[in-house]
């Protein structure tokens, strides 16, 4: 079987800036796209490196192109990032992003044209909230447009969230952001009263609005993607542990922290891999 170092190659994209596509070299069948959205203080790729490494020997991961969404959690607001995902994702799914699949006529794998048949969207912490916002906006827009065919890619996704910040910071004020960020990042976020600071204060407008709209839409047929599958860290001292009424029943993993809950280790802690693959956290 292929080794991890040979199974995928990262292609840092010029556009959208900060996004990286890990292109699979698997020659049998690459039929899935997994999209990763990091959280506070996260980085596009390094926040999720453990998934690539722990999953290297699993066929599921070899048959998957991995798209890592980069954004600046200290500056950008939640709506801006969510809207970008909603706007750009159709370039990556269901057809593979052609510009990343070959260079100088050299192809990443034999088949770079076939459609993917599955989209999995994974979010951690603030990334979970961003995913939720992108999902409900996609649903509302599609509904406004009279639900034309085909269904927007996001609304076909299987959604997995690790300790999402859907209910905001556990501690209020500067202390709350300090627990989620490094000291220097927390200082910056506080001084500029950035989205990551103000929007994540419990009861903020965006938290309330996201919950209300998601719960309203998720009951509708065709919007099943809005029902998230969630696993929480236990203990989690960064975000409030609270799911929406329309989410699937959630799970918690004892002995994990807000950061480590999405850090699988091959042979030691593979539950995050299973959760992403199947949606089941037990």
């Amino acid at each position, binding site marked *: 079987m292929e*080794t*991890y*170092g*040979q199974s995928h*190659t*990262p*292609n*840092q994209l*010029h556009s959208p800036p900060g996004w*990286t596509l890990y292109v699979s*070299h698997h020659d049998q069948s690459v039929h899935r796209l997994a999209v990763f959205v990091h959280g506070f203080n996260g*980085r*596009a*790729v*390094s926040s999720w*490196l453990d998934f690539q*490494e722990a999953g*290297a020997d699993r066929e599921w991961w070899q048959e998957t192109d991995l798209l890592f969404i*980069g954004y600046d959690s*200290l*500056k950008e607001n939640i709506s801006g990032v969510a809207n970008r995902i909603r706007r750009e994702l159709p370039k990556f799914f269901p057809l593979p992003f052609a510009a990343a699949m*070959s*260079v*100088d006529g*050299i*192809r*990443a794998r034999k088949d770079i044209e076939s459609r993917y048949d599955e989209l999995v969207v994974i979010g951690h912490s603030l990334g979970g909230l961003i995913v939720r916002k992108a999902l409900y906006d996609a649903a509302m827009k599609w509904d406004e447009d009279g639900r034309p065919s085909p269904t927007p890619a996001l609304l076909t996704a299987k959604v997995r969230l690790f300790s999402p910040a859907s209910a905001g910071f556990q501690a209020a*004020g*500067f*202390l709350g952001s*300090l*627990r989620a960020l*490094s*000291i*220097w*990042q*927390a*200082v*910056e976020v*506080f*001084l*500029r*009263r*950035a989205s990551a600071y103000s929007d994540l204060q419990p009861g903020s407008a965006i938290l309330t609005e996201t919950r209300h709209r998601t719960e309203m839409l998720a009951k509708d047929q065709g919007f099943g993607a809005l029902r998230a599958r969630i696993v929480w860290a236990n203990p989690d001292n960064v975000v409030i542990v609270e799911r929406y009424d329309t989410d699937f029943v959630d799970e918690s993993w004892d002995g994990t922290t807000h950061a480590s809950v999405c850090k699988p280790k091959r042979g030691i802690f593979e539950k995050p891999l299973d959760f992403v693959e199947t949606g089941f956290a037990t």
Partner: protein
Amino acid sequence: MSDVLAFRTALHRTNVMAPIVSALSGYDDGVLVEAAGLVSFQKYGTHTLLPQTPESIAMPRSHAAMILVAFLDEMTWLRIGESVGYYEDMAATKILSASLEDKPRVAWLSEFDQVTANPVGNLNVKFGAQDFQRELALVRDEVTPNLLRCFRLVEYAGAEEWKVEFDLLRVLEGLMEAEHSLSVPPSSLEALTWGLSGAGLLYESDWERRVVRTRLLRPVRIPNERRRDLLSLRVSIADSATRLSEDQGVDGSRRIATALDMAVRNREGVATWAAVAATRLTAESEFLGGLTTISEGLEALRLRQRGWPDYE
């Protein structure tokens, strides 16, 4: 599998090396000569002299120096990558010659790379393609514009530019001390983040544990005045940060909780660096002044390479 390696090699050439070479070829020869001198000194720790040079250095020189650093670092990554089977054999040579093919003005980069080649670091026998990809991914993520700006200011900026930027940071520290619910417009804060989150990796000990040590990743063993001044100011800012609150009447227990959180998070980074800095202040070297051509610079470097200690 050979197609995979060819794909990666081609990808590096088009996405990384070609833009670097193209950017460098856009500078005047004079600027490049000075920049090459700055970058060469840095390897040997002569950057300790930079704050002592009285002249005002034009900004293009420091920007060109940063691109040269990127060039040398990418050549290092390529060499390691080809040795562990991540890129094609001879990838570094092939990519460099292909990138320089239509850029005769910067053909000297090939020789510059050989003379000032980066240290590979403490690679052990188990380091393979998987480890390489991980290390490279970390670097691609962590070398942010803020970090690069900080690095440029600390290592290569002229005295005048450094003073202006550092004084701005000092103003922020004073305001934070005076006003605990201070807020700063995003556009203004943007000018200061190089010294806050941007400077973090310069002082964090994790930086020293990296397997591959390029110029940007090398351990901070030879601090200069700027690094010391910046560290001192950051300690003051961190102290002021314990009192940050939107609520003017924040109670004592909240402040203590904040201070404790910060102390726990901060202990390793600041303490480790300070200890290292205190013991490594003896670097001595000299400034290669008066060079007018690239070839003079390269020759001077060859001569000095033999006699200079390698602080890497």
